[in-house]
C-alpha cells in the first residue's frame, strides 16, 4: 500500500511517502511556517523522487489537530481533497498522538504539548503498550495549572515534548523528578511515524465531513452558545 502522510499542525512541516512499512521519501522543515506555500511543492517533489504518480497512492494519513488553526486546516484541506479527488482512503490521527509516536518504544507516560499562548496548552497524555498508544488523559485545551493537577494524580515519570519552552520550568517545579524533558529532536513531529501508524488504522467513512480537531470553539461561537444553549448548530450553511 502506497501512503502519503502529512503534518503541518504547528511550526514544523513534515511529509512522508511510504510503501507499507518502508519509507520511500520524507522531508521535515522547522525553519519556516510557510505551509501554504511549501506543502504542495514538497509533496510533488517527494512523489517524483519516489517514482510515483498521484494515482499510485492508496491512502492519505493526516495529523488532524489540535494545533495552529491555519496549520491544521492546510494539511486537512489537502488530505481530504486528495482522498476525495483520487477516491482513496483517508486516515486522521491526533497531532498530539503523532508527536507522542516519537516515543512509541518507551514504557513511560508521554506528554506532548502545543503552546496555546498565555499559559494555555493543547495537550494529552499517552502510554504505549507494544507500540500501541493508550490516550491516558484525553487530548484537550487547558491551562498549565489545571493540567499539572491532572498529571500529579498519575504519580509516574512523564516525558514532556513539543512546544515546552514556556512550560518546562514550572512543570519541574511542581512535579520535580517525575518530569523528563525530551531530546529536542524528538520534539519534532515525524510524518514517517505518522504514515506507519496510519497504515493500521481504520479509514474514515465519510471524507466530506472530515474537519480539523480544533478542540476549541472560536470566541464568537462560544459566547453565542452561552446565550443560546438550545439552538441547533448544524444548519448554518445553505446551498443556494
Amino acid at each position, binding site marked *: 500500500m502506497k501512503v502519503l502522510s502529512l503534518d503541518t499542525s504547528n511550526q514544523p512541516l513534515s511529509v512522508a511517502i511510504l510503501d507499507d512499512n518502508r519509507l520511500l521519501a520524507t522531508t521535515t522543515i522547522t525553519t519556516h511556517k*510557510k505551509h501554504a506555500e511549501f506543502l504542495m511543492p514538497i509533496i510533488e517533489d517527494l512523489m517524483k523522487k519516489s517514482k510515483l504518480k498521484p494515482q499510485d497512492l492508496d491512502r492519505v494519513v493526516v495529523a488532524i489537530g489540535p494545533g495552529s488553526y491555519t496549520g491544521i486546516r*492546510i494539511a486537512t*484541506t489537502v488530505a481530504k481533497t486528495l482522498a*476525495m479527488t483520487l477516491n482513496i482512503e483517508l486516515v486522521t490521527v491526533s497531532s498530539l498522538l503523532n508527536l507522542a509516536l516519537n516515543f512509541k518504544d518507551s514504557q513511560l507516560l508521554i506528554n506532548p504539548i502545543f503552546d496555546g499562548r498565555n499559559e494555555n496548552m493543547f495537550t494529552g497524555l499517552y502510554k504505549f503498550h507494544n507500540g500501541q498508544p493508550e490516550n491516558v488523559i484525553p487530548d484537550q485545551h487547558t491551562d498549565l495549572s489545571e493540567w499539572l493537577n491532572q498529571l500529579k494524580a498519575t504519580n509516574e515519570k512523564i516525558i514532556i515534548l513539543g512546544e515546552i519552552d514556556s512550560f518546562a520550568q514550572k512543570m519541574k517545579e511542581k512535579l520535580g523528578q517525575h518530569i523528563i524533558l525530551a531530546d529536542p529532536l524528538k520534539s519534532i513531529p515525524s510524518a514517517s511515524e505518522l504514515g506507519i501508524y496510519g497504515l493500521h488504522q481504520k479509514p474514515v467513512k465519510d471524507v466530506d*465531513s472530515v474537519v*480539523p480537531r480544533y478542540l476549541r470553539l*472560536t470566541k*464568537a461561537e462560544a459566547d453565542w452558545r452561552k446565550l443560546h444553549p438550545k439552538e441547533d448548530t448544524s444548519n448554518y*450553511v445553505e446551498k443556494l
Partner: protein
Amino acid sequence: MKDSLILSFETSCDETSVAVIKNGNQILSNIVATQIKSHQRFGGVVPEVASRHHIEQITGCIRDALNESGMSYPDFDGVAVTYGPGLVGSLLIGVNAAKTVAWAHNLPLIPVNHIAGHIYGANLVKQIEFPAMALVVSGGHTELVYMPKEDDFEIIGETRDDAAGEAYDKIGRVLGINYPAGKQVDQMAHLGKDVFHFPRAMDKEDNFDFSFSGLKSAFINTVHHADQINTSLDKNDLAASFQAAVVDVLSDKTVKALKEFPVKQLILGGGVAANLGLRDRLKKDLTDFPETELMLVPIHLCGDNAAMIGAAGAMLLRHHVFADASLNADPSLEFEYIS
C-alpha cells in the same frame, strides 16, 4: 477553436463555491454554499468561523459541481482559483483544494483575482468587448476599472475609505437590518423618497475616486439626533435618501469616466451591482452613450460565486497565466492604480 473546460474555486469570504465553466461563457454547474446564516449570529463575517465552514464544505461542493456538470477530470483544461483579495483563512481553503486537484490530475493551475471574477461574470451573459470599463461595487471594493484589452485591468478610481457595500451594511445595522443589509435597504429605498439630501462626497472633484464614510456618518448622525429629540424618522425615506446619494456619486463618476475613456462596454459587477436603483440609473445614463453597451452582471451572479472565477480563468488560460504548486493566498491583492 477547441472547447475549454475549467473547474473553478471561490472561497474568498463567506461563500464556498465550485463551478464547471465551458468556453468561459457557459455554466455547466455552479455550486454555492453560503454561510450568511452563521455569520448573521454575529452581525458580520467572523473570519475564523468562515474558515471553519469552508473546510467543512469544500469537498462536497467539488463533488456536486462535477456530478451536476456530468464532466470528469480528463475533460478539463485547467483549475482556476481565487487567490485574493479576501480573508486569508478563507482563501487558503480554496487555494489548497485547487492546488491539490490540479496536481492530482496533472492540470494547469490558474490564479484568479476575485475582482477580475466579478467583472468576468458579465461574460457569462454576453462576450465582453474591448476597450471596456467596469464599475465594481462590492462588500470590500468600489472601483472603476479600465480594460484596454481582456487581460489588462487598470484602476482609474476607487474608494478612499468605505466600500459601497460596507456602507450599506453599516447603515443597515442602524436601521435594525441584519447583515448583509444591501438587498433590504434597496427594497426600502423603493418605498421612500430622498428627503434628507445627504452629502454627495467628492462628486464634483476632478478625479474618479469615491468616499462613503462621510455619507455614512451623516446618516448615523441624522438618526441619532432624531432619537435624542424623540422623533422617529421614516425608515423608507432614510433608505431612499442614502441610496440616492450612493447612486448619484457612482453614476456621476462613471459617466465622467466614460467621457474620458470611450469604451465599447460598461460592465457593472460585484455584490452591490444587484442594486436595482443603481441598475436603473446606469441604464438611463447610458442612453447618452450610444456607442457604449451596458453589461449588467445578472443578479444571481453578482454575489460571490465560482462561475465568475471560471469565466475569468478561461480568459487567463488563453493567455497562459499559470501558477505553480507554491501559489499562496494574497489577501490584499489589487490591480494597479493608474493616475
